[in-house]
């Protein structure tokens, strides 16, 4: 194909200047972009206002998309259910019998638990979610893992609040618009969450790897006690997440910890709930520099 003739400005001064101005403007645009990028890498919250306003405008469309998505998923589930019905039936029957026994055991434990708590004077406090909403969108092209929530400031959502699905932790609210909020998902490479092994007190950090899995980094180094299939729950350290919510399940053990899969896949959840920050005072305290807290001068 021949080159377009419009590139040749010929002897027309006007066309020549027009083309030159175009190049200058493009170069200025690129330079301005570099400056903006530098600012937002340095201070990631600089342009939140623009972004949240934009997210607010597309949130209703995302809401409709979320409905279609969950309905589509349940349709696929139904079809595959029909195909596997026989084998699954026998398997499930066996499982139910075991589960009944475990249930009785759990009841006993629960009663004992209640009795011990009454003895200590503990009161069981039920956490009421701030808002229940759908995940309406996600950044599907970027390497960062953010999702957008269909509830925002008007529904009482605030920065830092944990987001969970019935299965486990989904992420944490990063910025809030009027009717939408941006959520940092567990798999993002900047996400770190304090966890402990469900069955004992092995504490660790679960960091996002950026490929959908988490890296479990043990706090106490030594002999690695982790096994495949270990479940990690939130430990409550840091004050954001209430302890005991499921986070991840170990897939492979590495020399210094493990690689784990996220239990609550955001793509498979319908509704998520936003919970209040578990211990707001602990979070505030973590933000305050020690020197200020103590009240003394910053240094000698």
């Amino acid at each position, binding site marked *: *194909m*021949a*080159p*377009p003739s*419009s*590139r040749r400005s010929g002897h027309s001064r006007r066309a020549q200047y027009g083309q030159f101005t*175009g*190049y200058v*403007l*493009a*170069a*200025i*645009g*690129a330079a*301005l*972009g*570099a400056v*903006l*990028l*530098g*600012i*937002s*890498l340095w201070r*990631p919250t*600089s*342009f939140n206002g*623009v*972004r949240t306003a*934009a*997210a607010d405008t*597309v949130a209703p469309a*995302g809401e409709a*998309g979320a409905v279609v*998505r969950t309905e589509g998923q349940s349709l696929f589930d139904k079809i595959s259910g029909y195909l596997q019905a026989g084998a699954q039936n026998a398997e499930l029957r066996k499982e139910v019998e075991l589960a009944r026994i475990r249930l009785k055991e759990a009841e006993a434990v629960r009663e004992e638990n209640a009795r011990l708590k009454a003895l200590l004077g503990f009161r069981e406090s039920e956490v009421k979610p701030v808002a229940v909403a759908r*995940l*309406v*969108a*996600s*950044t*599907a*092209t*970027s*390497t*960062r*893992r*953010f*999702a*957008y929530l269909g509830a925002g400031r008007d529904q009482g959502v605030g920065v830092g609040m944990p987001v969970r699905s019935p299965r486990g932790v989904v992420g944490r609210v990063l910025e809030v618009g009027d009717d939408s909020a941006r959520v940092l*998902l567990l*798999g993002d*490479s*900047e996400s770190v969450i304090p966890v402990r092994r469900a069955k004992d007190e092995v504490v660790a950090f679960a960091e996002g*790897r*950026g*490929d*959908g*899995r988490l890296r479990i980094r043990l706090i106490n180094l030594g002999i690695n006690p982790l096994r495949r299939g270990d479940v990690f729950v939130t430990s409550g350290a840091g004050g954001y997440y209430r302890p005991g919510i499921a986070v991840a399940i170990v897939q492979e053990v590495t020399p210094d910890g493990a690689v784990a899969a996220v239990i609550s*896949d*955001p*793509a498979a959840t319908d509704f998520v709930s936003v919970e209040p920050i578990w211990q707001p005072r602990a979070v505030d305290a973590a933000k305050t520099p020690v020197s200020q807290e103590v009240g003394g001068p910053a240094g000698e």
Partner: protein
Amino acid sequence: MIGELSSRARRDRYGSKINRTHSPIRAYVVPWASIMLGSVLPLFVIASAVPLIPPLGFLMLLSWRLVRPGLLPVWAGFPLGLFDDMFSGQPFGSAIMLWSLTMIALEIIETRFPWRGFFQDWAVSGFLAICYLIAAAVFSGGRVGPTMLLVLAPQALLTLALIPVLSRFVAGLDRFRLARVRGID
């Protein structure tokens, strides 16, 4: 004796030429609107594990620029990138910079290789798209490492496969853009 005129004599690919002309609104709005729509669409897919959806807005920009050189001004990367930044989840400014640089790079490539063809266009836009994916990952503000590059591979493959499809689609949009729909009174 004068034979009957061919039934297509007064038509071209944009429709009948009698009493009909192009709509200026359509001619100017369609490219910009379709690129902006490409920036917004990937949002509605919930991708929790890895980025999988090709950067549709960027690919639309490349396709329009290659299918219709001269239609988008050189500085179009700035406003369109600004719009993309509001939705992409990248730090603000990354698309502004990368899209502007892409437009300048395309100008340079075009002066160097003025004759074009299908495979050359595919190679050029594939090369630029993969550079864009890697640069966007580096500037994403996340941890840069081998995992990040590994994660990009499926997205890059999908992007390469989508480029010819998108350029056909843009050619279709271009026919829609220039369809003679306005009646001349």
